[in-house]
């Protein structure tokens, strides 16, 4: 996985890996490496999503200081 990859490129890589592995004819070492890479990409993307969600929460808290309502995620 490239360092500082964007979420989208990571997602695309993960998708590619899943698609490669679903073809099912990979040598064992390759399959393992792909699986490992896939899991890393998944975690990377998951973390990115968490970060985004956290950032959203912070943005909303900031704006809540200024605004009366607008809780995040209630609708």
């Amino acid at each position: 996985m490239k360092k500082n990859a964007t979420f989208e490129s990571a997602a695309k890589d993960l998708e590619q890996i899943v698609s490669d592995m679903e073809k099912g004819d990979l040598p064992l070492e390759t399959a393992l490496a792909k699986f490992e890479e896939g899991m890393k990409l998944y975690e990377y993307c998951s973390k990115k999503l968490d970060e985004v969600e956290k950032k959203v929460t912070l943005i909303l808290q900031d704006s809540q200081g200024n605004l009366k309502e607008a809780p995040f995620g209630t609708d």
Partner: protein
Amino acid sequence: MNLVQHTTKRRIHTVSQLTAVIKSVLEDALPFVWVTGEISNLKMPTSGHYYFTLKDNQAQIRSVMFKGHARNLKFVPEDGMNVVCLGRVAVYEPQGTYQVLVEHMEPAGVGALALAFEQLKARLAQEGLFNAEHKKEIPFLPRIIAVITSPTGAVIHDILRVLGYRFPNVHVQVWPVRVQGADSPDQIVSAFSQISAQNQADVIILARGGGSLEDMASFNSEAVGRAIFASEIPVISAVGHETDYTIADYVADRRAPTPSAAAEIAVPEYEGLELLLTEQVSRLKGALSLLIQKERDRFLNLKKRLPPPRRQVDDWRLRLDDYNGRVNHLLFRYLQGKRTEISTHLYKVNRLSPLHIIPNHKAILELRYGQIRSLIRQAVAANQAALKQARASLDALNPASILERGYSIARKIPGMEIVRKASNLSAGDEVEITLASGKVAAVIKSIEKGNKS
């Protein structure tokens, strides 16, 4: 030049020349005339033009309203109808007639004021004051609204009321003016210039209640019209009733039919905006939330689809165990085969061992032994038999058998030659005499000679 001069200084015209002069004089002098009279002899041929005669008690004049203008008529002209027409006088030279080419027609009874209004309106229109390209946009959210109107009365009240409920947070400046009367236009113009100078307001509302045409005089004044036109700040006009248009209405950037309507135009509805904003934020959050959820789902799905290579491992294990089993099996079968092979050889070697040929050899050997033993015995026996035969023959031929019959043999000693003739002896010779049984020795005493030699 006057008529007298014309007559004194005689100048002769042809009919055409005169007609041309008349035409030019008439048409130059009367480019636009208002004329009122009664319609008679009205005709409208298929061309769509109106041909009629305008007349009053003393005179009549031929008139035409071409199709293009007739289309704009708000009413249908009829014979006997008193109308006021705006048109120009035109001379038709071939027939030497003149007529009014009517461009605008309205029922009579409208006063000079209306005429003046129309004249002003026409002039300002020609100058382009009403043109759409000059209309400024009313700001969506004005901070300061300047209202030029009478500080008393229902108009300002209505405006403030509407502004109040639509958008409370706005600064309204009330510019008090007289809305009718002789000094009204000046006050209004002055208010415009002061607002302009102050340059605080975002929009100006010029308002007054309804009234007669006379009451509207200041709003129809050229000065007010020009002041509105000159204003850099957008102007909303709100004058009179819905159907009455004033010059101000024409010039203003926006015309409201009533003061309340002007207030509505000037500000948006606060609550609606707030609601809109809240809704937008809500949708914004929703969209992002959805997107994040979508991404999460997508990744969970991808993760679910990401197959750990366990199945491959299991498959391989089975295959490897199969290989392993086969390798073992094959090797043992192979070793078994080799053992059988060499055991077979061993079996054959044992079966063919010299032990099996030894008895044959032994038998032959024993046979030979028997043969040789028997042969040597035969040889010995044969010789014994032959010897025995020889002995028997010899015994039979034994010369000593004569002695049995009484003969004896004398041998001269020491030569031991057999004595056959007495002559061979001399007395005194010793002889040995062999008898049938035993020998004796004797000495010769005498000799008796025989006749045999």
